[in-house]
């Protein structure tokens, strides 16, 4: 069944709820691998670099955002990997999901950046429209 699951995450509350649903599904399936995907947004590249002490610290602070989510996955003994992509969140997730042929994409309905979503539309909406596999949007 869903052996290869993409869990899109930005560290928001919704993405943690999405992780919980991912765990439920993964626990039903043998050999299920969850890939936690975080997108370092192009639009934030300048301020990320300006406000970080260096490359290592920036990588670390991005990983740190996913820590609560990783704890969930760990405590339920789910096999998972973390992948950091660079790009515009919606298209980057869609491209990666389609290219790597995932069986299922799980994403929170809204992320951290509510203002941007009002203007540009939500990432989850874009992903749902354009991804080739089934998508689960978690409220």
């Amino acid at each position, binding site marked *: 069944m869903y052996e290869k699951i993409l869990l899109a995450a930005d560290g928001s509350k919704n993405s943690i709820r999405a992780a919980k649903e991912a765990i439920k599904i993964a626990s039903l399936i043998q050999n299920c691998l969850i890939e936690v995907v975080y997108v370092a947004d*192009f639009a934030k590249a*300048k301020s990320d*670099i*300006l406000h*970080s002490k260096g490359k290592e610290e*920036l990588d670390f602070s991005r990983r740190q955002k996913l820590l609560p989510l990783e704890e969930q996955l760990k405590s339920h003994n789910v096999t998972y990997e973390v992948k950091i992509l*660079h790009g*515009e969140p919606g298209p980057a997730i869609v491209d990666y999901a389609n290219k790597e042929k995932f069986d299922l994409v799980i994403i929170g309905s809204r992320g951290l950046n509510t203002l941007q979503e009002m203007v540009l539309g939500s990432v989850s909406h874009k992903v749902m429209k354009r991804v080739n596999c089934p998508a689960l949007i978690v409220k």
Partner: protein
Amino acid sequence: MQGRIKKEWFSNIRADILAGIVVALALIPEAIAFSIIAGVDPMVGLYASFCIAVIIAFVGGRPGMISAATGAMALLMLPLVKEHGLNYLLAATILTGVIQVLFGIFKVAKVMKFIPRAVMIGFVNALAILIFMAQVPHFIGISTMTYVFVAITLLIVYIMPRFIKTIPAPLIAIIILTAIAIYANMDLRTVGDLGTITKSLPEFFIPDVPFTFETLAIIFPYSLALAIVGLLESLLTASIVDDMTGTESNKNKEARGQGIANIFTGFFGGMAGCAMIGQSVINVKSGGRGRLSTLVAGLFLMFLIIVLGDLVVQIPMPVLVGIMIMVSIGTFDWSSFSYLRKAPKTDAVVMLVTVGIVVATNDLSKGVIAGVILSAIFFVAKISHIQVKEHHENQQTIFTVEGQLFFASVDKFVDSFNYNVENKDIIIDFSNAHIWDDSAVGAIDKAVLKYRENNNTVTIKGLNASSKKIVDKLSISNHSNTKLSAH
């Protein structure tokens, strides 16, 4: 070697060419506007953008990064152009290149790492403010129609990208509004009022300046400031492109490349430039990754000027002003406001001082230097905090020292002891301290000798290996009757 050339040039041909074209379109208004900021003909900025982009494509250290005429550099040049004219600017541009090549050879790029974040944030904010202020004379109190055109330009550049993603919005604004201005025969100032456009390729010539020490004395301060600011912005941009593309770049090669590009530019009638954050982001977003994208940007820019030069002079100034306001809004680091609240007070002060000095002097390099010095002082003040605690044990008086002992903390160290004791057994414990320099050793000697005057015995213990080494080498109390042991 061959593999690398292939990867850097030809691994992404289609996307690189398309992105290069997009960047060229976005570069034209900026190159013209930055020329006007520098007080020179638009051609000087256009030639600079062409030369720098083409040369840096070959010799730069960060494939996919866009370098051209920039606002940060243009702002530095204005006083030189006003007082001495274009030829001195070209000579200064060549010298800037030479300094940057030297920076590259002596690996100054590594030193740039030590420039604190607060200074860099102050740098971009000050740059944004200066670019905005440079626009003010071009739209305040000219005519109602000027305000209207600035406003419409801003509307177009902010709303259009939501619907049309492939063509840069500033170009759409220019095409629509220039057409309207020409068609309706509106009374607006145009680029042509501020300079001329020559529809020809740049030619090699040696700037017409006397080759004397006096000339050098005039241009050197400008060249040094240009070299520093150019490198600062280029390396910041390189880090941003590194992050966006998830790849590494060669910062010293980039410094050298910037220098080579500026030397060529100066000989071909262009002004000094550097990497551009905004344009590089546009390039990467449009799919540009390789050196080809930078080369295409430069070539296509020149092609457009040769073909469309007559139209370029008719661009109304308010449209350029609107585009520059957008550039300054995009340059400003808007997360600075939360930074001011969250960052340590000293960092916030360094940021504000950097901005303040730049705005007051109109010179980015002065702000950066002041910011670096101020944060160095704050840093020294912070780590010079030293603590000496006293307690008594088996008739011994034990002082434990905590902190870094060096020239800035020695006074406090010496004053921390109570010297009015006699015939005591005193132990000074340095387990939680580090001895850095000769003034630190001198301070220890002073304390030890003062105690010894009153017939106390003093034992020093707990020195770590490197502290012990420096104390053994320099101490004088060490050679007389005091025991000095390191455990």
